[in-house]
């Protein structure tokens, strides 16, 4: 999957750069903007990568989308109706298995713990949430 992102990044980066390097000049006096061009090129590439992300989850609906789709089909639903749309096994257990498979979580003696790689990722998450002033929602 990472390979797809890296490949997409470079292909689109090249395409964008070949256009942007020509386009970014002041219209009145045609002064070139090399730094802005480079910035534009990187941001456009990163944006395209961000747009690629749903492909990784194609076929798997998010819980939010499941609720909205259900409310499109039936105009009124109770909380119980909404609960019945979900399966805890798919919603939680499968994700735990995925985390173990990726190698950031391990199961030992019936408990889950972070691996060394997981601890590094956790440290990054804690640091960024503190800096950004947000908390992990879920």
């Amino acid at each position, binding site marked *: 999957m990472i390979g797809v992102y890296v490949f997409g990044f470079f292909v689109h980066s090249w395409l964008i750069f070949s256009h942007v390097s020509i386009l970014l000049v002041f219209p009145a006096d045609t002064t070139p903007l090399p730094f*802005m061009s480079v910035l534009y090129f990187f941001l456009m590439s990163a944006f395209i990568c961000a747009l690629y992300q749903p492909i990784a989850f194609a076929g798997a609906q998010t819980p939010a989308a499941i609720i909205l789709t259900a409310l499109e089909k039936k105009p009124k639903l*109770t909380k119980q109706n909404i*609960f019945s749309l979900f399966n805890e096994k798919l*919603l939680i257990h499968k994700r735990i298995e995925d985390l173990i498979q990726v190698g950031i979580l391990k199961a030992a003696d019936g408990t889950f713990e972070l691996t060394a790689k997981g601890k590094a990722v956790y440290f990054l998450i804690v640091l960024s949430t503190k800096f950004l002033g947000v*908390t*992990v*929602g879920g």
Partner: protein
Amino acid sequence: MDIFLVSLFLLYLIFYFGVQSLLFRTIDRYASVLWQMKLLIGGGTLSFLLTFLILVLDGWSFLNSIFGSSLISFLYSLSISIYLLSVYSYIESSITVKIFTLVGEKTEGISRRQLLKVYNLRVIVKRRIRRFLVQGEITQKGKWYARVSGTSIFSVRERLNKLILFFFP
């Protein structure tokens, strides 16, 4: 001139993260997506107007000022969109990230039963319903929930997903 524009752009980004860092400690967390939209649109407009004013006062031609401020505003919106799509959306609503951080909080480890006690299907669904209610996506009348508008940021993603499945079944 070029460096000046890049510096202005970086300044706006610092301003955005500063505002977010202060604001998001005080607001209702379920309204955070709405606030992000306000920061994106409001910040984009403000960066355009402010840059235009700075460039005109600095003696730049009208055409160059319009071009420069549009560019800055566009790059600002682009950067924030990347951040929202790639970082913020996962922190705000990813179940996987939540499970991961819950395990990380317990240094001695956490059993499946303990984990499900604090984070389970009901908690996940209740949070989403609350988020939709605060954002005005759905309404509640008694025990019934109904959809308010046909198009939202969530349904856009859903439609994109359907489009991907159509082309890559």
